[in-house]
């Protein structure tokens, strides 16, 4: 149920972002299927505290790289 709720939000947001982002260039060769995604540690939007993608290891993850513009 939680996943469904997130994906509903995601679908709405993606629709908005695709309009905002407009056409994009051809897919970049970075992050191909079969690659390991780096355990990058970045500040959380919420409070600036470190968040690493490694913390989600052991769970399936939908990762969306985007911008609000």
């Amino acid at each position: 149920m939680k996943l469904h709720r997130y994906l509903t939000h995601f679908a709405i947001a993606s629709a908005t972002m695709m309009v905002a982002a407009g056409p994009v260039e051809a897919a970049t060769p970075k992050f191909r299927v079969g690659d390991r995604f780096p355990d990058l540690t970045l500040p959380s939007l919420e409070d600036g505290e470190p968040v690493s993608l490694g913390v989600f290891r052991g769970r399936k993850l939908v990762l969306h790289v985007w911008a609000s513009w």
Partner: protein
Amino acid sequence: MVGIVQEQHPDRTRLFMQWKQMGWPIMVDSLNLLGVEVVPITLLIDEQGIIRFRGNLESLDEFLALKTDGTDTKPQPATRPDLEKLAASVRSSKDEHSDVDALFLWGGQPELDLAIASYQRALEIDPRHGPTHFRLGVAYRQRYDSDTRRPDDFQRAVEHWGIALDINPNQYIWRRRIQQYGPRLDKPYPFYDWVETARQEIIARGETPVALPVEPRGAEIASPSKHFAGDSTDVSSPDPDGRIRRDEKGFIQAELTLVPSKLAAGASGRVHAVFRPNAGIKAHWNNEVDDLMFWIEPPPGWQVDHRRLSFPNPPQLVSSEERRLELEIQSPKDFEGSVTLRGYALYYVCEDVRGSCLYRRQDLELSLDAYDTP
């Protein structure tokens, strides 16, 4: 579900999330450490951190049904690095980019000067390293938006973003960073048009919208194509002979920035003019009289969309806010070398709470340099 955003001003993402009532975790990658050249990118990543699908959610059911062997699936918690060790490493190192990036991310405002100096040092060793130019630009712009700004921080940011883009003209994220502050595009791009709608809908829900320290403006808001008045004669210089007394005490600190930092022949640029009361002498605006006025004298052959700009006084009698004005310019088709854009501002300013209020003029100029193809 996790997001990574490519933003100079992450508060805008916070507002977007509030508007769309999205609660999933977001990581902020203002330095573009991911190295992505485009957005959006959607990846489906399995329990071991391996990318299984890319590009859309059509494969979601197949992805969720996937079984992995369960090895290497222990969560790896994130920890905040030891800043003292990081700063010491950055001071002693000559080319360790990742330490400088970490210092920028986790050191915050107190370490921003050191991060900027370290990026500069890295560029002395490798002057054609595009990501370092981009990240130095991000750091300069961040300092510009802070209380520790130094003169020309914004201009330095734009210069380094421009160099980064020269090195890799296909980097869409870097290109957008310049465009959002630059002249309006021939085909207006709605970077942040959603902001106003978002605020209205959030307020209608009875919530308070996330505050934005830096409001979207200029090219960040889609608008009709640029219009240049040329040598319009319907306005005239309010002080053609320069008789108004100059602001010799520096009541108002003014700064002009050109985006992009260099212009090709026949190209457009955006001039950002910022006026800040000098807090050191407790200067503040006097709002009982005429608005702040900025008069522009374009060089021969140049066009501007405005010769005269003004900033409307707020309702309170005195105030000390930063005032921003922007205009667009276009170089002549045979532009080469360098010329100077001149102008002046007229304003009413008071020395301190009980001091006298004065009418002053400040002369301003901005070097306009031709873009040389790299």
